[in-house]
């Protein structure tokens, strides 16, 4: 039985998709090779895609390698998730000017722009869904995020190759894009299986006049995605979260990892879900106008733990513990879902290669020292 949403597109004809999106008014963005990795760039031609390139990722290490093959989506991902498209690293919130009333504040919500992001992975889509929950909740909608989100068209690519740092399978976020995409592609040799996941996606699909996908292609795509899931070497055991991590607050492993951690913020910057931000004022010299700007912040910065006159998280240990406990434990209490999507970026882009899939099991293994502390606490009734 042919699924109407499943079509076949020869890989050599991918340009047709780009052109169709272009005609529909989208700026087409895709991964392009730059500075030894891939970054999102506006492209017009399939030739701009990193054809034949693959990424090798390990803790603290990222390398691109040319295979010579015609593979279009051989690179899994670069340092950027979808986050910068919706939650901008630097977002002016208000323009404020002196006036007769003292001042006048004008909100600077950006106009919604139609952007099609081609090559989004399932983990990043999961990250987007999590950020939607944070920024678009009922009580307070973030107008800036909403405006950017509104114009976003996601062309996902299902993964058929896992990196050494991937663990989406154990987080139930991939390697197949589950929902919230507009189109999803699976690259099977020289063919692309195309699936529509939204009305906007169906419209684009119908513009393309593609034949239904043969069942053999659908089956082969499924087989490769499953194989990709099974090939993942890292995993995160979540069954005892969040409580087990809360209970590990006094574990000596925090000291060990703090000895390595640079508190440099890289893990939080590359994380598809991290949402902390700070607000900065930039007045002009004459104090007549100022811009109220939102910037990506991180729980690893000094200011993050600041509370009138003192810092509640002065040490690296405090900050790493805050980050991991939030990401893997309190996030679940806050949003009903883990803050980790298993993309592995925090492992790769950590300059010293700290691996949370290694830290978590160590933290959940009771240590002799921890048992002593727990016994003391029980004895003192604490």
């Amino acid at each position, binding site marked *: 039985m042919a699924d109407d949403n499943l079509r076949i597109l020869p890989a050599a004809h991918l340009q047709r998709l780009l052109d169709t999106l272009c005609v529909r008014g989208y700026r087409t963005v895709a991964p392009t090779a730059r500075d030894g990795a891939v970054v999102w760039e506006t492209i017009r031609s399939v030739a701009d895609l990193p054809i034949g390139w693959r990424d090798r990722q390990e803790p603290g290490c990222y390398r691109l390698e040319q295979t010579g093959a015609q593979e279009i989506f051989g690179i899994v991902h670069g340092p950027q998730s979808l986050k910068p498209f919706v939650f901008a690293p630097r977002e002016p919130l208000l323009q404020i000017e002196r006036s007769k009333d*003292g001042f006048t*504040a004008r*909100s600077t919500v950006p106009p919604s722009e139609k952007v099609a992001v081609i090559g989004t992975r399932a983990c990043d889509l999961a990250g987007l869904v999590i950020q939607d929950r944070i920024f678009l909740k009922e009580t307070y909608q973030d107008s800036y995020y909403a405006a950017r989100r509104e114009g976003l068209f996601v062309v996902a690519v299902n993964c058929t190759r896992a990196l050494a740092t991937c663990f989406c399978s154990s987080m139930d976020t991939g390697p197949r894009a589950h929902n919230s995409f507009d189109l999803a592609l699976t690259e099977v040799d020289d063919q692309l299986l195309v699936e529509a996941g939204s009305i906007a996606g169906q419209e684009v699909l119908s513009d393309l006049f593609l034949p239904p996908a043969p069942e053999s292609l659908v089956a082969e795509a499924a087989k490769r995605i499953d194989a990709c899931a099974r090939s993942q070497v890292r995993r995160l055991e979540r069954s005892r979260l969040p409580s087990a991590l809360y209970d590990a607050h006094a574990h000596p492993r925090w000291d060990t990892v703090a000895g390595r951690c640079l508190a440099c913020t890289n893990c939080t910057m590359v994380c598809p879900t991290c949402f902390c*931000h700070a*607000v900065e004022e930039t007045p002009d010299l004459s104090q007549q106008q*100022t811009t109220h700007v939102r910037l990506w912040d991180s729980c690893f910065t000094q200011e993050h733990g600041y509370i*009138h006159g003192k810092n509640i998280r002065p040490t690296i240990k*405090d900050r790493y*513990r805050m980050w991991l406990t939030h990401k893997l434990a309190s996030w679940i209490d806050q949003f009903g879902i883990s803050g980790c999507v298993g993309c592995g970026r925090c492992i790769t882009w950590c300059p010293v290669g700290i691996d949370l899939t290694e830290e978590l099991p160590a933290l959940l293994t009771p240590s002799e020292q921890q048992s002593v502390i727990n016994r003391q606490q029980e004895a003192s009734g604490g």
Partner: protein
Amino acid sequence: MVNPYLIHPATIVEKIRESDDINTYRLQLVDEQVRARFRFAAGQFNMVYLFGVGEVAISIVSDPDEPAFLDHTIRIVGRVTKGIAELKSGDVLGIRGPFGQGWPLDEARGRPVVIVTGGLGCAPVVGAIESIFRRRTHYGPVKILHGVKTPHDLLYRERFDAWRHVPDTEVLLTSDQPDKAWHHHVGVVTELFEQVSIDPATSIVLMCGPEIMMRLGVPILMRRGIPATAIYVSLERHMECGIGLCGHCQMGPYFLCKDGPVMRYDRVAQWLGRVGV
């Protein structure tokens, strides 16, 4: 869609000097429509903005029944509050708000109310006290226990004096480091618990002040039979957005700006006093 980041100008109608480094600013929103819409609950806070410098979260200390004027008691601690201290009446600040969960005044109806505060920590609960006394008959006996380090730190002296004369109300003050003129109790606020009778089954406790006061004080109250679910505390963390988005005010699973600042004790007991939380 209302933009929760939008800052509204508010004129300083009156600046009241409370001590060397603490002032109360009575603010009035400049825009009449914004002013007419503005409603708040006791215990909620505003983000107060100083042009070109930034915002700080400050609880609204005035009576929620008079939302045309919004009182904010501000101690000089950082760059924004230092700048605000330079302003005088007639100058303009900015306001965003109100944000957060206030005191459970509905739940307190018909019950004895015990209010325990320390230092400037009394500020967030002042509006609640005024609100209770405005409807005095709706509440049981009120006991206000307030501790300060030195008599110099005692703010709102006239209010404390006035509250003494409200029917069925006790006001007990204490100071750690009293001067010669101090004629109240000497010691920490938890010692005042011994001086009042509290019905553990029906009382509700509102607590506000340094975290150490809550950590030491609550267990004493609980030993007297007051359940953790009848104790409410107002907590502080760095707040930048006021709407649970910027991530700074987390305490365990809570965003204190939106889930708090007033929290029922049993929900936060596990987190209070944890290093780095």
